[in-house]
């Protein structure tokens, strides 16, 4: 049987693969949306509450900062995921499946994204904030009309990196019953030594990550007006994940 025939007939590929891909997309999509929804305000809070920020809150900032450091730096995602199973059960009513995995994916990735948001906001020059203050802006207006729009290229890049990280984490989630491409590769590639499935899974994940990165880079370029005409991929900074798993 040649390779092409195998691709068309292997039940793992014809039946399980589309389902697994769907689960992966669900995990990345749903947790991505929640990470954006929670992480963006959290990152803005980290920035504005820092000493010398728009509204310094020394103690609260310190506590939130420490919690985030501990989630992202001290606890490997694989362990966090297992530790969060009761939480996932409490929220979704089940401890297995893609939806349950979204809980730990979100909690594990929010701090990472919030940090990237904070870093992006720091790049907004203080002169712009001064200008907005002298115009008579409220703090909320500064966030909405200065910080977020001016940091947008960096924020888009940060979210792209976060989605890519989520693809990787979602594969790990598959190992503890989250489904998706990770579980497919584990069940067929590892437990049944089905090299074809393993290979196809890898290729699909690479393509998925490439597409996310490509769309992310293109969007970042679109919203970047910082340098005339040449606003391009060259000067576009890519955030590298700070975590090891």
């Amino acid at each position, binding site marked *: 049987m040649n390779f092409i025939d195998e691709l068309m007939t292997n039940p793992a590929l014809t039946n399980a693969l589309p389902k697994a891909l769907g689960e992966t997309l669900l995990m990345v999509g749903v947790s991505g949306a929640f990470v954006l929804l929670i992480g963006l305000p959290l990152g803005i809070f980290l920035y504005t509450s820092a000493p010398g920020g728009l509204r310094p809150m020394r103690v609260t900032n310190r506590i939130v900062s420490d919690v985030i450091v501990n989630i992202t730096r001290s606890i490997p995602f694989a362990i966090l995921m297992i530790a969060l199973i009761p939480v996932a059960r409490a929220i979704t009513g089940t401890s297995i499946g893609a939806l349950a995995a979204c809980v730990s994916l979100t909690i594990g990735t929010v701090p990472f994204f919030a940090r990237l948001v904070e870093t992006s906001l720091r790049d907004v020059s203080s002169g712009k904030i001064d200008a907005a203050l002298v115009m*008579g802006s*409220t703090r909320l207006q500064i966030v909405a009309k200065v910080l977020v729009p001016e940091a947008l290229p960096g924020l888009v890049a940060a979210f792209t990196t976060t989605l890519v990280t989520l693809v990787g984490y979602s594969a790990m989630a598959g190992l503890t019953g989250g489904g998706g491409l990770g579980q497919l590769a584990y069940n067929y590639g590892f437990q049944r030594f089905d090299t074809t499935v393993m290979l196809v899974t890898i290729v699909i994940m690479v393509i998925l990550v490439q597409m996310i990165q490509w769309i992310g880079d293109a969007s970042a370029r679109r919203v970047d007006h910082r340098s005339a005409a040449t606003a391009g991929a060259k000067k576009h900074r890519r955030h590298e994940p700070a975590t090891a798993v």
Partner: protein
Amino acid sequence: MITVTDLRKVYRQGNREVVALDGVSLSVPKGSIHGIVGHSGAGKSTLVRCLTLLDSPTSGSVSINGAELSAARDADLRSARRRIGMIFQHANLMDSRTAAQNVAHPLELVKTPKAAIRSKVAELLKLVGLEGFENAYPSQLSGGQRQRVGIARALASDPDVLLCDEPTSALDPKTTDEILTLIHDLTQRLQLTVLVITHEMQVIKRICDSVSLLEAGRIVEHGPLRDVAADLGGRLSTTLLPLPPAETNGSGTVLEILYSGDSASEPVLTGAARAFGMDLNVLAGSVESLAGTQFGHLRIQLPTGADTASLSRHLTGQGVAVRVVQEETA
């Protein structure tokens, strides 16, 4: 009208105190431009930051058109700030906004109707000479054009007061001239009260009606441009009408003289030379028109044995300031 009374600002750095402003008082009448000069570290930036309450003064008060700014909080402070337009060294425009959107920014903050914003923005861009650049992003504009957008934005809320922090320090000489002319014209047309912070004497010479010299957080000289320039030997006068370093050749007495306005150059010197029958040797000179008045600052050397005292008396009698910088050497 801007009034600053006994403004002090002390920064804490660890357990060290830095006195950035040490009792600054000044007042700028409506329709006039006041310049504040000083070297780097003199406290110029601190002064503008305290004027806009970007930093809160340690003590003292700032009032604009009689409204006390230093006591204002939150909503009051925001509406007080709207009476102030501010221009920055690097314009500080939003890169994500076009020229028109940048000018619209202050208007959006108070929920101005869209149509009103559009017409106001068009009017302002025309005022600063940027018609046709509505949709350009700051990165597509030159430094001078960016500063023009900054000026239009500063004027959007119809402020009474315009604060300029080193408005031309990042610009080339030609553009500097254009921007200064614009600020000068706008001040007269809109009857603004303007405070310009700068380290460039050029700015003072071109547009200021009055000037203060800031040094180590204190105003050490101040007054109308005409008066400070006429003050022979004063720090501002020396920088406004600079002479090259003295060269000592010959042994005669060396004098510095400063005349202004109607005591025009030729008659004064030639008159004196004729009256005393001596040759006056001009070593260096600086002639400028400041605040509409002609100023001359000369260093002259008298022949050996000349009657310095009577010559000085003669010149002083004609309204010329005289100062001996080097006695006759044997």
